[in-house]
């Protein structure tokens, strides 16, 4: 039995890790784009970025999952019923549902990119103006100043809030089951229903604990590595 449970949970946790890794892969850079958007001097871009962050942070991830999974398909069928010749409507009529896993990744990426963007923004705006000014009077370009001077200081400052958010992401992956993407908790729940076993749930908790423990160690290492300077 133990072996059966282990195998099933490993499978489920594989899905969890997949969601985790893909979300990070896309949300980390997308967050930077949104952060620059919300710091932009160009009002419309700033407004759109801030509006997006407001909506995404202001509504539950579970709701976003459902909307992103069902939304495109519903819009598609509504548009095709109109039988319009308008090219926009025709284009909308081609919309279909994402497959379940893609819908999970899209929702998670958008959601986490918004949270990351606020952390990035906080980090970037906390760097004293004098650093930029020093770069400028030393004849460095704006991008040289950002990449060679500011960036590492930003990274140092955002490591603690980022590690917080990333550990939350590990646990949030369990929301994928809302749209029937089966991850580790779903798999362990099956044992309650079919075999009346409770311990696989605690076993599942152990999976999370160990993985988050690993992440904590990794972030601790990075923090230590950057502790050689004060910023």
């Amino acid at each position, binding site marked *: 039995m133990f072996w059966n449970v282990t195998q099933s949970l490993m499978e489920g946790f594989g899905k969890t890790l997949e969601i985790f890794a893909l979300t990070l892969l896309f949300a980390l850079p997308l967050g930077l784009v949104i952060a620059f958007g919300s710091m932009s001097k160009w009002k419309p871009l700033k407004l759109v970025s801030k509006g997006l962050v407001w909506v995404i942070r202001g509504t539950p991830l579970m709701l976003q999952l459902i909307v992103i999974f069902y939304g495109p398909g519903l819009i598609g069928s509504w548009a095709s019923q109109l039988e319009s010749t308008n090219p926009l409507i025709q284009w909308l009529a081609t919309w279909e549902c994402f497959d379940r896993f893609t819908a999970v990744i899209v929702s998670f990426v958008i959601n986490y990119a918004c949270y990351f963007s606020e952390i990035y923004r906080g980090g970037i705006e906390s760097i*004293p103006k004098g650093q930029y000014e020093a770069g400028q009077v030393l004849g*460095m370009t704006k991008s040289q100043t950002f990449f060679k001077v500011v960036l590492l*200081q930003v990274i140092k400052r955002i490591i603690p809030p980022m590690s917080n958010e990333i550990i939350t992401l590990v646990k949030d992956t369990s929301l994928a089951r809302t749209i029937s993407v089966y991850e580790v908790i779903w798999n362990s729940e099956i044992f309650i229903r079919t075999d009346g076993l409770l311990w696989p749930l605690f076993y599942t908790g152990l999976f999370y604990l160990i993985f988050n423990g690993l992440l904590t160690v990794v972030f601790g290492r990075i923090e230590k590595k950057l502790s050689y300077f004060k910023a």
Partner: protein
Amino acid sequence: MAILEVKDIKKSFGKTEVLKGVSFSLNEGEVLSIIGSSGSGKTTLLRCINFLETADSGKITVDGDVIFDGEDHSKKKAKETREKQLKIGLVFQQFNLFPQYNVLDNVTLAVKLKAKERPDYKQNKKQILAEIEEKALKLLSDMGLSDKIRSYPCELSGGQQQRVSIARAMALEPKILFFDEPTSALDPELTGEILKVIRELAKSNMTMVIVTHEMNFAKEVSDYIVFMDDGVIAEEGKAQEIISNPKTERLQAFLSKISD
């Protein structure tokens, strides 16, 4: 011929007119101190000359080259502005060293980045970098920091940090070096070491403009002193004269307040 010529610089922030038309000039190898109470516009003047603020009108010429002209509204290329920027150096009140780089890298970072633009950079990379390093080491030893080249800014005292920042500015070989209250962020016992460095620079005929509160030092090290009050130059003249024998009431009032 004047190496620095500042003509009728005006600058407002919103409705507050901070500079109401400031003109002065400076010859090569001379030292000018700018004194005045806070809010008199001296720091804004410095920031306008260093491109950290854009003046509303006026003209600034360095070494015969117009670096700013309020009449000229054509779009400047960023690269052109950077070239002009490099003619002048600035030492900040708060040092603004780069915390993640050690002392040597702080001094060489901008110089190395600039060297990359040289056409022969790829061929002579090793030699160019070695020369830059050698020059930086020389500057740091002049500043008395030879034993600190691998230290990080957070491991240095304020006075040492300020000396690094002076070396960093000097590494780019500016025609004129500006100081924005270089000792104001330092404990009194540390100001001496900075003043000593500036004195040495003056001896080596470096052209300098110093915004300072250290009256005695200004009197000793500068050739000329400009007294700013309420956005204009209220009095200017030879250093000894202006401090010992102030003509305007405002300068007399300022000097007696300071000596209290």
